[in-house]
């Protein structure tokens, strides 16, 4: 997949990024980023803190635009649509869901958390909402743990359960792409493993992009990887190749430290 030419959508690529630059009040956060994200696979973005991987992730659902002083140039094509000019940000975020580093369930019931997304997109009928809530919680492997207490506060759940609830909440709006910003960095090993298994089962239906600075995790779960350093991708491709046997000296030193 390193042989790229033009912006013709490859049948297997969900997202194509070309010459992407992002600035925050003059700070050059992303420098000429080019990558293709394969469909129905897990792509891991890896790199040290502050390398721009989270900024890149938040470009894909245009959350960066909410930060004051943010400016973006370049193109990001999602299924043939230019996400900066061809689609409204609200519409885009419906297609591209996001799970955050820290679990952030809303301070309301488990049911209302999952139903929030479908409700804002106009679904009012209770039977349909109930179906979506159950379906989403099942997909997030949380249904069996919470089916008897859907009306309980989401804050009563454990950290790992909260994160799976956030995944269910994102799935409830039926996205095509799921962005996950270090989704396991605040969780214990058992919860982390559950989330990793969940990601592997979700990739049949969704295109998943995860940021992490955990090499083992990246190798375990990913089908494709990109290494970020100082706002640019210095290598991308098969995780085995770029993380286990890195050619680049900078990746080698990062991998060996961890």
């Amino acid at each position, binding site marked *: 997949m390193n042989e790229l030419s033009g912006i013709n959508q490859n049948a297997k690529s969900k997202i194509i990024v070309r010459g992407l630059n992002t600035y925050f009040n003059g700070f050059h956060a992303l420098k000429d980023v080019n990558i293709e994200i394969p469909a129905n696979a897990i792509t891991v973005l890896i790199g040290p803190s502050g390398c721009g991987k989270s900024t890149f992730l938040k470009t894909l659902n245009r959350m960066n635009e909410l930060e*004051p002083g943010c400016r973006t140039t370049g193109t990001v094509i999602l299924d043939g649509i230019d996400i900066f000019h061809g689609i409204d940000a*609200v519409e885009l*975020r419906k297609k591209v869901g996001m799970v*955050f580093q820290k679990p*952030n369930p809303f301070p309301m019931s488990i049911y209302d958390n999952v139903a929030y997304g479908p409700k*804002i997109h106009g679904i009012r009928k209770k039977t349909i909402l109930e179906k979506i809530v159950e379906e989403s919680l099942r997909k997030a492997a949380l249904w069996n743990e919470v089916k008897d207490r859907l009306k309980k506060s989401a804050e009563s759940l454990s950290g790992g359960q909260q994160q799976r609830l956030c995944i269910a909440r*994102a799935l409830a709006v039926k996205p095509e792409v799921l962005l996950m910003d270090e989704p396991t960095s605040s969780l214990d090993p058992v919860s982390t493993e559950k989330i990793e298994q969940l990601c592997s089962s979700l990739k049949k239906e969704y295109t998943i992009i995860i940021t992490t600075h955990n090499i083992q995790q990246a190798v375990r779960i990913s089908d494709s990887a990109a290494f970020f350093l100082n706002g640019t991708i210095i290598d991308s491709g098969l995780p085995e190749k770029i993380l286990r046997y890195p050619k680049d000296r900078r990746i080698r030193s990062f991998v060996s430290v961890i």
Partner: protein
Amino acid sequence: MPYWRKYRDYTIKTIVWIFALAALGFLFWILSDLVVKGLPNITLDFITGEYNEYKGINGIAPMIVTTIWIISVTLIVSGLIGVFAAIYLAEYSRPGPIVRFIRFALDNLAGIPSIIYGLFGYVFFKNMMKLGFSILSASLTLTIMVLPFIIGSTENALREVNRLYRDGSLALGATKLHTVMNIILPCAAPRIITTMLLTVGRIAGETAAVYFTAGTVYRYPEGIMSSGRTLSVHIYMLAKETGRRGETYASALLLVIFISLIHFIVNAALRAINAKRI
């Protein structure tokens, strides 16, 4: 520790204690004075009766009704304007000259003595807008007076709502308006309600601004265009014009109990909110 240091330490401690006791003492003195002179005059007739200095009836019911009217109208108007202004400042405004000017204006409004608000209300609402001495004139005047507090406090409440909730909602494809109405406002609601309660206390205790705009007529108000006399104005009129000490103290005691009750509720509510957050 050298002996003089110990000596200095004790001296400062003693002085601090004396001043703290003095402050408490004054509070206790005023309260006990109110209770001793006021409590014997608080009867059912006093609370439910009308007032007429010529007929010798000394009730305060019309003043209580007027006070409730003014509190209600002021809360509705100032609450609506204040919360929307705070939403603008906390969620929509971008730093710049306009926001700086709004903050400058709010800070200055907050520092103006209430009698100036009264004079402004008298000239602008009563005379120019031809609203006359009325509950509406007084409520609009009080609205301007309490707005800086409501806006400032509500803005803080909105800003303290966890940013992660906001991002979570926006990332699901919610519009900004939807996020504000469904996530941010409900989260900030306890703090906003607390703010409104404190405002009630402030309105109930305000005298100068009301005296100039609602008037001093001691009958039951018939609507928002009626003039009327609030409890605090009544205390002033009783003391100044009749010299009826007993009724004055009784009215004052009721007002103090009402305002203290509000502060008590607010403190309990704030403790509950803070406990929940931790």
